[in-house]
């Protein structure tokens, strides 16, 4: 039945709204349409004491979907640490969490996925993903000041994946550049498991005085409910439930959402101005499940009811049904609850910004959402039923593959013939090579706050009118999570925090996006359950509460589940932004040391994948040590002892040193006394809790003393200088050659050109 949902629906609509209708008359097709099981349907009928009509069923379907209702993840998410001294608005209370950064200011931030829409229409899917997360931030009353994008694609030798990657990058740049919010960081990772199911996660960060924090409430009987912004079309009807369907490409129905960043910019400015007027009671964006979810959530927060007259909703197309109006996901729309009698002030503001608005309803003192069209009541549902989606815990079973991959024995691997060749191959591979061909298309400096743009461990923004700075990073390491879900997820948190620490910032709070396969597959559910535990473990140890996030399940294509991909967005705070640190080597003669272990492990490394074609091993992290390491590094930076700091991640020590050398355009001479260590483990081994630092030679005693104090080893491994990188007699790289390979690697892969080597 290859029919557009609206049409299919309209036939059944009559059937369902028929008062003689009994529960059994609902067909499987209709249930599939709203992504609902028959037992859920029966449950709804019990709750209402009657059969739901079509509009009501659609509303339930959307709000009980994973995207809005977190059916499969809510019990898990409850276990995450969400409290802390700095938390002003905790996870789940509002559209995004708010964190105190001192000086009476707060930072609001959140990450969200737009994976399924991007699989269908990558440019618009990514663009509207950015638009959606920006709305979550200014809904809080904050001015958005930064964006980050975390991306995953299948192998770039496949032209479809190259197309998806290019279009997604284009869409992100298009939206962010036009609204004038700098994109200052992100990730770009290639793995076969994302073939046909790319991941597009976008994070937005905003800033505001504590006193301006705005709640997304519909409260106060009689207060008018105003819809501002774009006219409503048939866009993305079923978007919210669509995100829980396993094959988005085939089930793509409705109309693809096309974003309008220009309109969003007008919404940002006008909404911030409207908030300043004091005439706004509550502000709520329209995201997944459109009017339904925003009205329901806003009323639910204040325990009020809400009554909508959908005939007042301005439309872009003719013939929209009440069902479509309630579920349309047309972009760039906001719901404003005004103080009764002050609507005119708000209309004046929106009008000046050239925005259209309609009064579409009012707040009531019961606890129902009522939808009216003409004289007819199209829906009446107690709000609590819509917001309390049933939750499920699926059978969990430890995946069979784990024993096999974890029993990996490095002795069976032969060390590479040419370490140099291997190093160059790694440096030019898409996951390690410079991402500049991506972020060169992003405006990174609009807003005049960018102190460290894309290209470092974390980006740093100054906070105007204060001495402070904030640092931001997104990190995920799906291969490690695949090999050991709990440890891998903890490692992602640790890496995000470590990246922020390397700039001299104290990690203070985190957001997360859980991108997983189908939760109904027991081994996938195991990955989800374990990963959430791992995030909790690390956030507790590192004292970085989770302030919010998003869950994206059913990421699979065919039978292929994506690698489990929790993405962590980390916020760090610098009390004095002048004390920041960067990753590039600075001066001839500076010394280099490693904090933490000098060599890593082959487990789950990029080297093992690229040079040996293996995804294997059992990663490990000592979280208590990680915390001490981060404290040591922070103290070294705040004491002003370091010239550079760079976290050791993919590609191990070689890549870490190479990146710092390229950034500073200066060579190094390493002298490492590593007997008993395989050369590949030494140079390409990975593992958490390692930072390469550089400093003036005369500071070594102080550096060492601070490391000692935190019970962290600091090992001197070399000196900065020259135009070559001497890897302790094992191999030598020429800085020029290295820079070219690293700079060109990704651009070449993305354009589909065959590389020379």
């Amino acid at each position, binding site marked *: 039945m290859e029919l557009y949902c609206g049409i299919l629906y309209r036939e059944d609509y009559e059937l369902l709204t028929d008062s003689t209708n009994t529960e059994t008359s609902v067909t499987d097709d209709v249930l599939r349409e709203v992504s609902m099981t028959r037992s859920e349907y029966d449950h709804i009928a019990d709750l209402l004491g009657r059969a739901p009509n079509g509009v009501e069923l659609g509303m339930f379907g959307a709000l009980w979907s994973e995207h809005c209702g977190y059916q499969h993840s809510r019990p898990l998410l409850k276990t995450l640490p969400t409290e802390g001294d700095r938390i002003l608005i905790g996870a789940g209370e509002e559209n995004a969490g708010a964190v105190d950064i001192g000086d009476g200011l707060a930072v609001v931030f959140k990450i969200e996925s737009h994976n399924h829409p991007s699989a*269908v*229409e990558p*440019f*618009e899917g990514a663009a509207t993903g950015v638009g959606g997360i920006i709305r979550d931030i200014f809904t809080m009353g904050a001015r958005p000041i930064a964006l980050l994008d975390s991306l995953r694609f299948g192998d770039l030798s496949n032209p479809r994946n190259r197309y998806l990657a290019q279009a997604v990058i284009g869409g992100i740049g298009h939206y962010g550049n036009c609204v004038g919010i700098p994109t200052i960081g992100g990730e770009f990772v290639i793995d076969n498991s994302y073939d046909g199911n790319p991941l597009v996660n976008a994070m937005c960060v905003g800033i505001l005085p504590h006193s301006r924090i705005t709640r997304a409430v519909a409260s106060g009987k009689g207060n008018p409910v105003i819809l501002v912004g*774009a006219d409503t*079309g*048939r*866009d993305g009807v079923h978007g919210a439930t669509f995100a829980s369907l396993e094959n988005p490409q085939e089930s*793509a129905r409705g*109309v*693809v*959402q*096309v*974003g*309008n960043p*220009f*309109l969003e910019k007008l919404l940002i400015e006008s909404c911030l101005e409207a908030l300043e007027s004091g005439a706004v009671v509550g502000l709520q964006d329209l995201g997944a499940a459109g009017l339904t979810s925003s009205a329901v959530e806003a009323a639910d927060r204040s325990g009020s009811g809400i009554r909508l007259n959908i005939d007042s909703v301005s439309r*872009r*197309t003719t013939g929209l049904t009440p069902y479509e109006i309630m579920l349309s996901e*047309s*972009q760039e729309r906001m719901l404003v609850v005004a103080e009764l009698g002050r609507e005119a002030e708000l209309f004046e503001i929106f009008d000046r910004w*050239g925005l259209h608005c309609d009064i579409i309803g009012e707040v009531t003192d019961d606890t129902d959402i009522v939808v009216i069209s003409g004289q007819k009541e199209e829906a009446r549902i107690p709000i609590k039923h819509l917001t309390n989606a049933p939750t499920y815990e699926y059978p969990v079973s430890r995946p069979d593959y784990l024993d096999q991959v974890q029993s990996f024995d490095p002795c069976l691997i032969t060390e590479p013939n040419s370490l140099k060749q291997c190093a160059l191959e790694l440096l030019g591979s898409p996951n390690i090579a410079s991402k500049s061909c991506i972020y060169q298309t992003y405006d990174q400096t609009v807003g005049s706050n960018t102190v460290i743009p894309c290209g470092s461990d974390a980006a740093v923004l100054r906070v105007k009118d204060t001495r402070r700075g904030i640092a931001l990073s997104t990190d995920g390491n799906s291969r490690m999570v695949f090999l050991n879900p709990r440890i891998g997820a903890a490692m992602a948190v640790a890496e995000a925090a470590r990246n922020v620490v390397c700039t001299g910032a104290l990690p203070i709070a985190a957001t997360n996006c859980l991108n997983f396969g189908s939760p109904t597959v027991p081994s996938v559910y195991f990955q989800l359950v374990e990963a959430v535990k791992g995030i909790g473990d690390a956030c507790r140890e590192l004292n970085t509460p989770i302030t919010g996030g998003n869950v994206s399940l059913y990421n699979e294509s065919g039978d292929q589940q994506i690698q489990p991909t929790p993405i962590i967005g980390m916020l760090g705070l610098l009390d004095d932004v002048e004390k920041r640190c960067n990753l590039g080597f600075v001066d001839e003669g500076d010394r280099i040391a490693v904090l933490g272990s000098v060599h890593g492990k082959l487990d789950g490394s990029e080297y093992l994948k690229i040079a040996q074609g293996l995804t294997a091993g059992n990663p490990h992290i000592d979280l208590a040590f990680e915390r001490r390491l981060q404290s040591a590094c922070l103290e070294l930076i705040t004491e002003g002892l370091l010239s550079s700091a760079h976290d050791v991640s993919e590609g191990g020590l070689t890549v870490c040193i190479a990146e710092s050398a390229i950034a500073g355009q200066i060579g190094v001479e390493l002298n490492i006394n590593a007997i008993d260590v395989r050369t590949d483990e030494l140079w390409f081994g990975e593992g958490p809790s390692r930072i390469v630092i550089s400093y003036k030679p005369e500071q070594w005693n102080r550096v060492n003393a601070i490391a000692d104090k935190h019970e962290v080893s600091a090992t001197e491994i070399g000196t900065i200088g020259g135009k070559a990188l001497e890897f302790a007699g094992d191999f030598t790289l020429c800085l020029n050659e290295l820079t070219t390979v690293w700079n060109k690697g990704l651009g070449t892969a993305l354009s589909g050109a065959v590389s020379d080597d």
Partner: protein
Amino acid sequence: MAIFNVAVTVRLQTEVNDPQGLTIQSALSALGFSGISNVRAGKLIEFQIEAASEDVAAKTVEQLSDNLLSNPVIENFEYAISTPTSNTR
């Protein structure tokens, strides 16, 4: 082999949101051009193609219009082929 002139027109599907069209429309009314409605913005891609016959050319044009010049998820395309009458312009 002959050379054919091709013009491919790409339009957003009617139900798809057209921010460009909407912005132009409101600019026009702000400029005092009244009575203008349903503004939609599309693309025109023109080129020359060398092919054995018009049919062969049409086949190629169809293929590349569908895959490259337009995005079937949100757009429709249309094309016209003609033999160059002269080589000016």
